[in-house]
Structure formats: structure tokens, C-alpha cells
């Protein structure tokens, strides 16, 4: 049969694996993306899982999904709509159908659709038996039965067999793409080195799924995606949180400053802590503190003693750290605070993504306490912006807040591996031993940066702290004029960072009808939407901001080139209000969403079209 199959040449395909949490959907998605990557495709992934570790079986609340977008073209997002959906139970079908493209292939485990499970998912009738899925290419695969049958021959019980159902569906997907199975089989060989029977079992189930697909007429055509054209180099797949951790490790090595992380576990930032603690061989010191406050305070202590000091958290944790960030501002110490944003306020939506902590990052402290704020925009560029945050913190003696979000942190993307020696140098302003002129708050006249005198250094004993300091001497001071001066200096020092960051870039022409402005984790969708309209000949461009505080020096010039400006963000309008304050000469339109969901390219294209 397979030789009669039609190949459909595709630019890109979105595949989503979903089922009960515990059905192994995250693994199936990861194995699929690894195989795609090794075949030379570009890709982006996004896991979508419940906050509960094991929510009740077969409920909507318990659905865990993993979406993979693969293609020959540049892949910027994990995809709006799904082309191939794997649904292991009625609940996962129900909750994902609205994100599935009309005509898409839906592969279900038909064995899991009975009256009880359908009812639990909120179906009145079995969707496999009524006509509700008529517009789709439905594959009713008896996954459970075939998996059990296949493994019976190896003497494996049903319970164990059921745990490999995800692998069966992977076999079907590989058949659709006509991919070889070896990447995944190799994974089993490494994973189950000590359980050879499981290597055999998983391989058999994978092959059974593949052969089963061969017999299914409804699958009809196979997809073929040519290799992506990507810049030459060595690549790997990486999640945003791992990329963040590695960016800091690179910055520590390049600056010669030992890495110290003080952190408290919080979704969705914990993976940075978990990743860094693995790298003691690189000298990383990782302290899991008793709370968020101890996380940042220990980092401030480490910073005073000469470390590249970090603390990682998510929204509620940033609230707890506010007072200590002020201390780092006052003591003018290098510190990077990572906020992997999630839905708020309060505990909010821990596993969903949002951009609603921008105002908190900019202003959420007592007193006038300016800090540098930088936002990463893709899983892979978390590396770059973590590195840059560390560089700015160390060279400008200032706290830096790095904003990422749950989608970036958990999402993955291909990453072109840099050489550490090729990264920009990092030169912290260390005070020399026995420097007779050393004073704690004596500043470089250009950058306004004070020197970093590390405890243990001869001749530099000094005291600093959270009380207002006299400029220069660093003595405690309540002098009114000095407080004004220091307030102005702290602000000016942060603003001067603008001399050291790149100018704001534009995707498209520098002049036109519409400028789309976005920042942080929405870049994939805003860029794809703008490029789509550009292809249609619209005079639309994108300015996607990574540097929020300070803004790039050419911000005014960028905004001035367009008739209309629309600012898109996943909050109620925080960046747009900041721009209204900083660049008041322009009229800003805004497009906002606070649903715990990313933008879709489709909705953005529709909204932007209204502007012409």
C-alpha cells in the first residue's frame, strides 16, 4: 500500500499529542521533535500540562498535551492550529478540537472512547459514532488493544503494555511522514540500558504502530517536508529555561566571576534551578533557599563577595523579592533576577503564560528604584538575553530583571550552538588591591558605575547597606541635597546603559502605514503575522522590543516612521502605557489578551488588517 501513497509536499506541519497526564504525551512529543531535528527540520515545541500532578483520569482538567511545529521554513511559533492531532481519550479530543484545523487528521485511541469516558469529558454521545467529526480525517485506531496484543507475545502484562500506547501513536505519525524509526529506537536503547526487555517492547510497539498505519486507508497521503534552510553550524534542541541557565553559565565563565544562584522552586521557573544545580563541575554554586526572600538575599550576599549572582522566580516570587531588589539598587551591586512570568494576580494560572509582570518589574518597589529590564523573545534567545543581562549587571553594577514567560521557558526551539570565545567579553569594574583612592561610591564619570571591591582584597575594607549613602564616600547620609543627587545618579546610571545596547531593529521598512510593537515572548506570532501581511503588499513593519528599561536610543525615531502604531501584548496594556509615558508624542492603539493563552497568527492578521 505504502508505495501507492501520495506524497504531499508541505512547508510546515503542526502535530499535537494529547491525553491524560501520565499517558506519556510529553515524551511522545519530545521524541517526535528530536527525530524531526535530526532530519534537518526547523521546529518549535510547546508543552501544555495541568497544574495538578495527576488530575482525575479522563477529565478535561487532566489533559496533558505537547505540540510540535516542524517545517522547512523558519519556524517562529509552536503553531496556531493543529494538522495532526493524537487524542488518547475523549477529554483530550474535546479540549483540543477547537485548536484543530478543519480537515486535519485526528488519530484517537478508539478503545478509550466508551460511555463513561465520553460522559466524563462532557460528551452526550460518542463523538466517534455521531457525525460531529465529519469535517476531519478521523483515524479510529484500537491503540490499547493492538499494543496489548503485540506485547502479549513478550509476556508483558496489560498494565505495563498500556504505558507504551504513546509509542504506538508515534509509530503512526512516523508512517505519515515516512520517517525511519532509528532515532527513537536509539533513545530506547539508552533509556532502558538496564532493562533490555523494555528496549525490545518499545521497539515492537513502535513498529506495530508504523505497520498499523500502513493498513489504514483513511491516512491516504503522506507528508513530506524538505530540510529547512538554516545557517550552517552545530545545532541542538533547547528549552527557554535551559537556555537561560546556560547563558548564565557562559557569562560566568567569560567574566571569570563564579556563578551563585539563590532560588526557591516555583512554576514555571524551577527548571532553571534544576538545570544549574547539575553543573557543579563548572563551579556553579546553587542554593535552594527557604523562601523567595532568602533566595534573593543570599544572592545579594554572594554578589557583595564577588559572584555573578542570580535569583530565579515567577510573578508571586518577584513580589516577595521587591524589598531586596531595592537593597541591590541602593548598594549598586550586580544581580540578575529572572522572572518566568505566569498568569496572575496572586497564585493565578501557574502553568499558563502571560506578560502581566512588566509594571511590577519596572516599578514594583518602594522609593525610586530603577533597574534594567530586559525581555527574551524565543526559547533559544533566552541564552543570548541571559548572557546580556549578566553582562549589563556585572559591568554596570546594577540589578537587571530578565523577563521570560512560561511559553518561552517550557517551549523549545532549535539553537545554533555558539562558541563561548565568540561571545562578547564581560569586564566587571573590580577595584584594585590597596587602591588609595578607592571609595565605595566613587563613580566612573562616563558610566556613573562604582567599583566592586571584593571582600578579602587588601586595603579595601568598606561598609555598604540599604541606608542612603553619601555619593563618593558611601557614608550613611540623610542630607537632602545628597538624596536628590543619589536619586538622580541611580536613574542616570541605568539610563546610560542605553549607550551599550543595540539600537531597536525593525522587521520590514522603516516607514509605512502600520507599526506593530511587541515585546518578550510574543515575537514568534507578531513576526509571523506581520510577515504574512507584508507578503500581501501591506506597508506594515514590526518593532519587537527586548530592551525595556532603558529603551533603545532610537525608539523615538522608530515610532516616528509610521502613520499608526499598535502595541500587542498579553496583558491589559502595560508596555503601551509605559510607551505613553516615555514617548508621549505618539498615539498608540493596543491589542491585548489576558486568557493565559498566546496570540494566534490568525487573530493578529485579522486585527492588523482592520488598520488599513
Amino acid at each position, binding site marked *: 500500500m505504502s508505495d501507492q501513497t501520495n506524497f504531499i509536499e508541505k512547508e510546515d506541519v503542526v502535530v499535537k499529542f494529547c491525553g491524560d497526564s501520565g499517558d506519556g504525551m510529553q515524551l511522545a512529543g519530545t521524541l517526535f521533535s528530536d527525530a524531526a531535528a535530526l532530519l534537518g527540520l526547523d521546529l518549535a515545541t510547546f508543552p501544555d500540562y495541568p497544574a495538578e500532578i495527576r488530575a482525575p483520569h479522563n477529565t478535561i482538567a487532566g489533559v496533558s498535551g505537547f505540540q510540535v511545529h516542524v517545517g522547512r521554513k523558519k519556524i517562529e511559533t509552536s503553531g496556531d492550529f493543529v494538522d495532526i492531532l493524537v487524542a488518547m481519550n475523549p477529554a483530550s479530543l474535546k479540549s483540543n478540537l477547537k485548536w484543530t484545523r478543519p480537515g486535519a487528521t485526528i488519530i484517537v485511541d478508539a478503545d478509550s472512547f466508551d460511555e463513561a469516558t465520553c460522559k466524563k469529558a462532557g460528551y452526550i454521545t460518542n463523538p466517534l459514532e455521531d457525525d460531529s467529526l465529519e469535517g476531519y480525517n478521523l483515524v479510529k485506531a484500537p491503540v490499547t488493544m493492538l499494543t496489548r496484543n503485540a506485547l502479549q507475545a513478550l509476556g508483558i502484562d496489560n498494565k505495563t503494555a498500556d504505558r507504551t500506547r504513546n509509542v504506538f501513536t508515534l509509530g503512526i505519525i512516523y508512517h505519515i511522514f515516512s520517517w525511519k524509526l532509528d532515532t527513537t529506537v536509539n533513545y530506547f536503547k539508552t533509556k532502558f540500558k538496564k532493562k533490555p526487555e523494555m528496549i525490545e517492547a518499545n521497539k515492537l510497539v513502535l513498529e506495530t504502530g508504523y505497520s498499523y498505519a500502513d493498513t489504514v486507508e483513511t491516512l491516504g497521503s503522506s507528508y513530506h517536508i524538505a530540510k529547512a534552510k538554516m545557517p550552517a*553550524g552545530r545545532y541542538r534542541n533547547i528549552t527557554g529555561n535551559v537556555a537561560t541557565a*546556560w547563558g548564565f553559565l557562559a557569562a560566568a565563565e567569560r567574566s571569570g566571576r563564579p556563578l551563585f544562584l*539563590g532560588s526557591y522552586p516555583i512554576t514555571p521557573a524551577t527548571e532553571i534551578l534544576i538545570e544549574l544545580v547539575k553543573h557543579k563541575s563548572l563551579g556553579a554554586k546553587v542554593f535552594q533557599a527557604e523562601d523567595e526572600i532568602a533566595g534573593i538575599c543570599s*544572592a545579594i550576599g554572594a554578589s557583595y*563577595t564577588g559572584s555573578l549572582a542570580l535569583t530565579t522566580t515567577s510573578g508571586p516570587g518577584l513580589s516577595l523579592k521587591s524589598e531586596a531588589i531595592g537593597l541591590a539598587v541602593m*548598594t549598586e551591586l550586580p544581580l540578575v533576577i529572572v522572572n518566568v512570568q505566569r498568569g496572575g494576580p496572586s497564585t493565578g494560572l501557574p502553568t499558563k503564560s502571560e506578560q502581566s509582570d512588566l509594571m511590577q518589574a519596572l516599578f514594583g518597589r518602594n522609593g525610586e528604584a530603577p533597574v534594567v529590564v530586559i525581555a527574551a523573545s524565543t526559547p533559544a534567545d533566552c541564552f543570548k538575553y541571559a548572557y546580556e543581562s549578566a553582562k549589563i549587571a556585572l559591568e554596570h553594577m546594577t540589578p537587571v530583571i530578565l523577563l521570560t514567560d512560561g511559553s518561552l521557558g517550557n517551549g523549545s526551539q532549535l539553537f545554533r550552538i555558539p562558541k563561548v570565545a565568540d561571545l562578547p567579553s564581560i569586564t566587571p569594574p573590580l577595584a584594585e588591591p590597596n587602591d588609595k583612592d578607592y571609595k565605595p561610591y566613587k563613580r566612573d564619570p562616563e558610566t556613573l558605575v562604582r567599583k566592586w571591591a571584593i571582600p578579602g582584597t587588601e586595603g579595601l575594607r568598606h561598609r555598604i547597606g540599604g541606608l542612603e549613602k553619601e555619593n563618593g564616600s558611601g557614608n550613611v547620609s540623610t542630607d537632602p541635597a545628597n538624596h536628590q543627587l543619589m536619586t538622580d545618579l541611580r536613574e542616570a546610571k541605568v539610563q546610560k546603559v542605553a549607550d551599550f545596547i543595540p539600537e531597536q531593529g525593525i522587521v520590514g521598512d522603516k516607514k509605512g502605514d502600520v507599526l506593530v510593537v511587541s515585546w518578550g515572548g510574543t515575537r514568534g506570532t507578531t513576526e509571523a503575522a506581520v510577515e504574512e501581511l507584508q507578503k500581501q503588499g501591506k506597508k506594515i513593519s514590526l518593532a519587537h522590543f527586548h530592551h525595556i528599561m532603558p529603551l533603545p536610543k532610537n525608539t523615538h525615531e522608530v515610532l516616528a516612521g509610521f502613520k499608526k502604531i499598535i502595541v500587542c501584548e498579553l496583558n491589559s496594556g502595560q508596555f503601551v502605557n509605559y510607551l505613553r509615558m516615555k514617548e508621549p508624542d505618539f498615539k498608540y492603539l493596543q491589542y491585548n489578551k489576558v486568557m493565559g493563552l498566546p496570540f494566534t497568527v490568525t487573530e493578529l492578521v485579522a486585527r492588523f488588517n482592520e488598520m488599513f
Partner: protein
Amino acid sequence: MFEFPDKTIERSVVELNKSDFVSDQMVKWCPGCGAHAILASIANVFPKIGYRKENFMMVSGIGCSSRFPYYVNTYGFHGIHGRANAIASGVKIANPNLSVWIATGDGDSMAIGGNHFIHIIRRNIDVNIVLFNNQIYGLTKGQYSPTTPMGSVTKTSPQGTIEHPFNPGELVLGAQGTFFARAVDTNVKLMTEVMFEAARHDGTSVIEILQNCIIFADKTHEAITDKEVRDDSQIHLKNGEPLIFGKNKDKGIRLNGSQLEIVTLGENGITEDDLLVHDQYQQDPGVHLMIAKMYPPHFPVALGIIRSAMYPTYDDLVEAQIAKAQHTSKILCVDDLLNSGDTWEIK
């Protein structure tokens, strides 16, 4: 002088004296405040400890006690309320070559920073915590603290407090503390001695100083420190020696069943052999806890080193894990890391 077990911290090649640690800042505590005597003790003990003067680091939080770093010429960090122990944890882990001293009070470490206090102790990070216990909030002008005796009238308890106070020693031992000593601000010699021993101890050392606040809680420790009563209300612990006190050295503490009791030597055939012998090094904190809990009017207060037990320190274990990882891991630079696992070349 004892050999210091801790070889991590570099020692001074020249002999140091008090003047090496005098800062140029005006000391702004109230005249008559007990903190002056604590400062004098630190100035005595740092040269005796003998580390390079650049290897001392003072950390504090907020409160009268926490102005301390400004008054000692070392590297110093004046933090925010309650966080001295958290800041100092980062200091010591990041740089184990420093002798880290924390100046903190009963508000800073027992109330707003209570969490950090118990956790630094539980981890046994090698720092020295000098806890100024004046049983009152001084800097905010006279509100009750977690160690204020029940019933005390303060600005925020006009009818008397209705809270049970902490005994810091119980808290330290409950948090698995390895070193706890107690001293009074009227006895510089004793403070200097226990600070020296705290410096020698590997792990978190807590020194509770019963300190007088002349303005807001004057004579709060009078029942212990007053010249008229102190011989009967203080017992000075010496390792390996029986617990004897009293003006005539005729009273002792004995373990009767599971409880301590006061006995008089020579009465009912009681001799020194019947008394509890202090063993500050014993691992089990049971008897240490009983000693730490002794308080007037039923018992004298135990001064000196109550507990000094050997346990691995957090900071040593961190260094050991790093050394092990560097010995066994294949990833020795970030380029190794970036190229580890599944990677592929695109031409």
C-alpha cells in the same frame, strides 16, 4: 592559644590589635546601651582570632544591633530587616574564605527573620551569629518583641503582652544548632571568651547576649545581672566540670530522673560527684536543652558555652560536591556543555 581547625581562612602574618578594627564612624548608640560592651568584645576578639583583617566580614539586618557593621573596620554589609542570616548565607557559601559575623537582634532574628534564623542553623553554615537580646524593639522605640516576657507593658502592649516569649536557646537547639553560648553585656571577658570559641567552631555559632536597653527596657535582665543577685542567678559553665554556682559556691545542679534540680552541697550527703557534669561536645542535645531552658526564679541562667557539637558544615559540603563533580564530570567548560547530548551539524 588553640589551633584553629578551620584552615580555609587565611591568617594574618602580622600581629593585629584592637586599633586594626576601629572604624572612622561615630558610634550612635545611646550612652549606657549594652551594645557598646559587645562592640568592645568584638574589638578584643578579632585580633585574637588572628585572621587577615580583610577576611572578616560583618553582616546585619535592621535594628539597633544592626548598625554594628558601621562601627567595625571590616568588610561589612548592612542589610534589610530580618535578612541578615539570608545575606550571610550567600556570603559564606560564595566565599568560604571569609570569617562571617552576623549582628542581629531579637526582633531581626526571632520575628521578621525567624525563618532565615532557623534555616541557617539547620544547614550549619559556618557563620557566627551575635544575637543581641534586649527583649524589646529599640530602634522603632519600644514595642514588644518575641522575647519580651509575658505580661510586659510596652508601647504596643499597654495592658501587658499576651504572648509566650521565645527562649532563643530552645529555638537554636530545636533547629538542630551545633553551637549555642550565652553571655551578659555586663561581662566583656565572658563575651570575648565565647566569641573566640564561636570562631573556632565549625558551623553556625549562636551567641545570645542578654543586653540592656537603657531607654525602652531598662533592667530587663536585672534579675540575672544585678550585682546583688548575680552569684545566685548565673551559673558559669565549664566543660568537664560540675554545675556549681552561688556566692559561696555551695549550690549545684543535679539530674534527678529526667529533670534538673538545684541541690546544696553538703546537705543530705550531696557532694560534687552527684552533680551534673557539663559536656558541651555531646551530640545529643537533650541535656543542653535543659540547661538552656534554666531561668530565674527557679534556676540560675546558664552562661558560657552550652553546646558545641561537631557536624559537617554546609559550606564544606558544597565545596566537596563541587570538587567531586570536577573530578568525575566530562563537562569542564561551557563549550563542553553546549555540545553535550544530541547535537547535529547543518552545512
